[in-house]
């Protein structure tokens, strides 16, 4: 009976000898995300208790950390992305980490504070059999109806705005204006847009080049495909970092190092459906995925400078 009560109540279990608190986004810790397996794996080697706190999506994580400020009890944050990094850095809440592993990323990475643990290219995902465009211009010229996310409430949405900005620079408003009639609708988050796609309401959706791998591997459904664009694909890198106020600084560093071990990286690739940040054998299905020829990426500081203006451009072009 007590067991059932404890399960029903939302009160966390008692703490172990040493506690490591990891703040992350909610789908990371769900039954189907990497969280449970990573917790088990790390606890086996650390003689500690790993506790997840998940206050929402990636943007909510940063927002919550800023609300907590220096009183935060979190030791590590997992799941900020490159478009939020400049603001995270400015907050002064994070400390440089001790891990210096070799990274396997399409770009050079030297930041001492934020450690990549997985990455992916944004892509337009669609069903096989629909005519596949090879650029935003071809997409604009087609009849395809695509569901995208709002850059004001979703990180992939912001990623798309940065993608077009990185690819087209000052021509971005023009591209958005041309795309306007192809945009079925704009959703608050990734899952609503993806739902519209899988339910057949949208022909395509903004997601990742790795999304078809989920359907192929987990659902045995090879029908999804990511359109590879000639202008290149924007990169999203997911980051982990140590809180400056952490009282378990060493343990936090050990966890960051653990995140990049082959065991942890394999878990992440298979549950988060992103590319691992450290060389490990790719899961089946990832190998067959088409890879873009060109990677587009704006440095976090640049994102911070142009973000508001780029979102306003997007808003103006689509509001017409």
């Amino acid at each position, binding site marked *: 009976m007590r067991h059932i009560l404890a399960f*029903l*109540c*939302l*009160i*966390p279990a008692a703490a172990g000898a040493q506690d490591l608190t990891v703040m992350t986004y*909610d*789908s990371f*810790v*769900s*039954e*189907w*995300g990497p*969280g449970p397996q990573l917790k088990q794996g790390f606890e086996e080697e650390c003689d500690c208790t790993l506790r*997840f*706190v*998940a*206050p*929402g*999506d990636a*943007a*909510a994580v940063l*927002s*919550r950390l*800023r*609300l*907590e400020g220096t*009183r935060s*009890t979190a030791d590590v944050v997992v799941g900020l992305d490159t478009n939020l990094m400049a*603001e995270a850095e400015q907050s002064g809440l994070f400390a440089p980490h001790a891990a210096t592993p070799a990274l396997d990323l399409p770009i050079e990475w030297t930041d001492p504070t934020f450690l990549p643990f997985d990455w992916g290219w944004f892509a337009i995902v669609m069903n096989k059999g629909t005519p596949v465009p090879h650029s935003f211009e071809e997409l604009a010229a087609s009849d395809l*109806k695509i569901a995208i996310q*709002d850059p*004001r*409430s979703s990180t992939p949405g*912001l990623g798309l705005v940065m993608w077009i900005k990185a690819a087209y620079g000052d021509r971005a408003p023009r591209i958005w204006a041309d795309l*306007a009639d192809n*945009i*079925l*609708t*704009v*959703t*608050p988050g990734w*899952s*609503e847009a*993806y*739902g*519209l796609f*899988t*339910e*057949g*309401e949208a022909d395509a959706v903004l997601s990742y080049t790795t*999304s078809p791998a*989920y*359907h192929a591997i987990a659902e045995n459904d090879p029908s999804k495909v990511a359109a590879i664009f000639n202008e290149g694909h924007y990169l999203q890198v997911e980051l982990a970092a140590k809180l400056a106020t952490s009282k378990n600084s060493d343990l936090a560093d050990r966890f960051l190092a653990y995140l990049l071990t082959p065991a942890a990286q394999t878990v992440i690739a298979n*549950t988060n*459906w992103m590319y691992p940040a450290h060389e490990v054998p790719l899961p089946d299905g990832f190998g067959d995925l088409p890879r873009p020829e060109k990677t587009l990426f704006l440095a976090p500081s640049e994102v911070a400078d142009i973000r508001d203006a780029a979102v306003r451009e*997007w*808003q103006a072009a*689509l*509001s*017409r």
Partner: protein
Amino acid sequence: MAGRAFALTVGAAIVALTLGTLALVGLRAEGGWSTDYSALRFTVVQAALSALISVGAAIPVARALARRRFRGRGALVALLGAPFLLPVIVAVLGLLAVFGRSGVLNQLTGLAGLPRIDIYGLHGVVLAHVFLNMPLAVRLILQGWLAIPAERFRLAQSLGLGPRGIFRHLERPMLQEVLPGLTALIFVICLTSFAVALTLGGGPAATTVELAIYQALRFQFDLGRAASLSALQFGLCAMAVLLALRLSAPGGFGRGLDRVVDIAPAGWRRGSDTLVLVLAALFLIVPLGAVALRGAPILVDLPAGVWWAAARSVLVACGSSVLVTGAALALALTPGRWVDLVAMLPLAASSLVMGTGLFIGLYPLVAPEAVALPVTLMVNAVLALPFAFRILRPAATTLTSDYGVLAQSLGLRGVARLRWLTWPRLRAPLGFAAGVSAALSMGDLGVIALFAAPDRPTLPLMVQQLLGAYRMDQAAGAALLLVLLSFGLFALLDWGGRRGSAL
């Protein structure tokens, strides 16, 4: 006077959770205040249209339900509770299955060679809001209809008043009493719409104030902007409620003796009533059916975690329902305009601002995860309270004006008054209010995300997690489970209240 003290406590709790949390967010702000006028305009326009059309469409449906008796009437009345309880994304997908690009309607128009219907835009937003709120409006207007004493209808019939005369002398005054408050209620609900408005609005032209708040809090960390936008929503809510109070004229039907009288007019009105009922039933049932069909095959093999989450949610819903119904009754029995205003505040509260404010207030004191359950319970209760209050208010006012003097002269008070007067006379609205509160508490998750313990999710959070993990099928199954449980709780409580009454 214990009742009044209790009502004041409830009122204070509401103000603390709505305006208090807003103040906490505002105090943490560093920048100035600002507003977003284009978002404001769209927000007000869509909310006003949604409210007017929901109420306008609800009148003939409620009238047909009030004067016709037919098989399945009880089921239809119960079903009216369902759309209102759907999680937003589920409702949107259900509507798209009918009105979307590949929906039933476009397949029909395609066959007939007619042009495609495009749902995305202001009209889509309004359609969705009508789908979600019109049934609630029907239920509340129907209550008003049934509250006209049968003696008055008998008098009207004996005077030879036809349906038109009955409308002028009985039904119109009743509507004048019920509609302003109801319209304000739906207006304020739609005011804080976010996901529906954006998804069906088709793009950033459909930006609402709530989205701007989301952006300010999550992406800009501009607490001042979030607080000022939220204050704007409260301002609009207050204006709507005060306007409604001004426009609302008491019906003044006096009391009846609970007699039943047949008021169904024959002739062409029989046909028009039938048509109205069939159309309304189709409008509700087809999207709901789409949701059911989509989720049903998955329902049998949902992961075990989903069932645990369901158990947790039912627990929260039951607790919150008890809390809400008691608090709403105390407020509804308390006279005064401040009560009407305070009871509507939670509707205008941005759930994100409320959650953030609570977090700012509680974080220095306790670990957020440790108070997840009580916070969830309390916040769900406060968010459901305006609905329970609106359901109970007219009946409670009538009760006081009809029997207050008699009860007082007999010394009927406290528990005895609840047991021998309030409960028997308010049973139907109490059951309805308890059902709506329970179901709303099952569905809501806006505020609690900041507090939730990740390994012990509630059912709505679970649906969100499944969606976020590509598991659209399982999410559809879990969403259907959520709908079934919400509706089951609602129907059970509602039925318990209506048993033996005319509703």
